């Protein structure tokens, strides 16, 4: 079975977010980039399923410029077999989805996995777009994924519960907890990652459908108003009369 895992290169969770002086772009200076945490579930689960089947391949794909290669190598160190980088700045979800769908079509992958969203743009869009571009089902967001032959059983989160869904390959799924315990690279993985193939391809497609006009920071909090523990009940009055939330 051929797995394609999409990984996005995002600022580390603890990053203090700032923008370029014109507020049009994220300021990358001094920022540590990581594999999108949600994508690690997709990557690890694909590797686990490949191992369980005893055959197959896991290919990672990233749409990004050359500076994303350290994280692509990290995915290879975790256990992916090979990688494809579409050499372009990921301008919006549709553009990224077009690139992934194009690569997926050419490689005839059986299962396409990715995280439920990226922690930078928080779009949660690429999975559905790829599924629709390829004309195959998407299951999003999935909390569990098991394969038996060409049939997958997934648990999809819905508000207040879950749906158990069965689909046949090929399909797309976005992944989230508690699908698996994401793996970290070991020494052997890091050594072998250097020699695994990383192919660079040029982008295709018709381009983005959205454009960021400007980024802004949310309004600063006023600062915390402390209520003494002895008169905790006062808080409830403040929530009703001042904050007007109860």
């Amino acid at each position, binding site marked *: 079975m051929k797995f394609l895992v999409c990984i996005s290169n995002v600022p580390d969770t603890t990053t203090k977010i700032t923008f370029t002086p014109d507020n049009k772009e994220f300021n990358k200076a001094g920022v540590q980039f990581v594999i999108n945490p949600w994508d690690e579930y997709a990557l690890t689960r694909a590797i686990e399923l490949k191992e369980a089947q005893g055959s197959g391949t896991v290919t990672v794909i990233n749409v990004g410029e050359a500076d994303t290669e350290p994280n692509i190598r990290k995915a290879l160190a975790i256990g992916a077999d090979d990688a494809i980088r579409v050499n372009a700045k990921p301008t919006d979800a549709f553009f990224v989805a077009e690139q992934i769908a194009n690569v997926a079509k050419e490689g005839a992958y059986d299962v396409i996995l990715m995280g439920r969203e990226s922690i930078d743009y928080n779009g949660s869009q690429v999975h*559905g777009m790829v599924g629709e571009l390829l004309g195959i089902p998407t299951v*999003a967001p999935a909390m569990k994924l098991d394969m038996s032959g060409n049939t997958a059983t997934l648990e999809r989160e819905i508000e207040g519960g*879950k749906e158990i869904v069965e689909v046949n390959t090929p399909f797309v799924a976005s992944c989230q907890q508690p699908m698996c315990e994401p793996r970290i690279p070991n020494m052997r993985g890091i050594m072998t990652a250097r020699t695994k193939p990383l192919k660079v391809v040029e982008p295709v497609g018709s381009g983005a*459908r959205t454009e960021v006009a400007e980024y*802004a920071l949310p309004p600063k909090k006023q600062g915390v108003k402390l209520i003494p523990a002895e008169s905790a*009940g006062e808080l409830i009055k403040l929530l009703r009369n001042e904050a007007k939330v109860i």
Partner: protein
Amino acid sequence: MSVLVVVECDNGEVKKSSLEVASYGSQVAQLLGTTATAIAVGVATEANLAQLGEQGISKVLYDAEPRLKDFVNGAYTKLIAAAAENEQAQVIVLANSNIGAAVGSRLSVRLKASLATNVVELPKVDGGKFTVRRGAYSGKALADVILTGDRKIIAVKKNSIEALHNAGQAATVEQFSAQLTDADFADAPKQVVMQEQAGGVLLPEADKVVSGGRGMKGPEHWNLIEDLAKALHAATACSKPVSDADWRPHHEHVGQTGITVSPNLYIACGISGAIQHLAGVNSSKVIVVINKDPEAPFFKAADYGIVGDVFDVLPKLTQAVKELG
């Protein structure tokens, strides 16, 4: 040209987040000088649907196909796309829910539309330019996004738009058929498992949340959280180590790797306020923190705080809520 609103129904009722979406859609329609139609998914009665008039909706369509009761991505996408074509919808508005995200992204490709999710404000329409504000970087930033396509799809973040209630206004309700076939139900669920809700309030829909962390010391103390939640008519939630230790079910865990919530009121009890936790709750309107450590990082993100022991403070809060009547 019109605005199409997707309303999700559950147990015969329109979800609260869909009332917000309907209100958003009717205000967009007003901005554009047109009317807003709704397409219903899930199960609701005609009387429930007619009430969407209170949110400014003029007409509601629904397909009586019984298999639409549960979420099926293929069928929902086809139904909404058919309704959009039928209504010549230029703007489609849905909730930023699990259903909204799954369907919205497929629809955007099918209808060649620009898509913005996580939207927190009404759009700005300036000549031909259509701009929406959305949350980004896990609540640490906002982005103003121009939707450049002729058609636009907007997924509205929960609790970011006030639901309108124009009493007495009724929408007309009409049956609509998207001629769904078996193939559209290829991803129909084999089984649907609903979780038990403490106090009956669904966490992703809640406008008040009482949440507990490791400071609660063990599952046997959760009655303190539940009592306050019940009194406030709030949902309960927890931090990751709490669900990892099985004190609470996974679906209550909020944060970077759990559920993202944006209620009007978030009360954090015995939670330190690690950045990964904040990522899931920092766009809550009002944050209250109860922690015995005055240096807990959560106080920096809080609007109100009590430096104190949860075991002492929580019963006092519950009592005070009950006294409000």
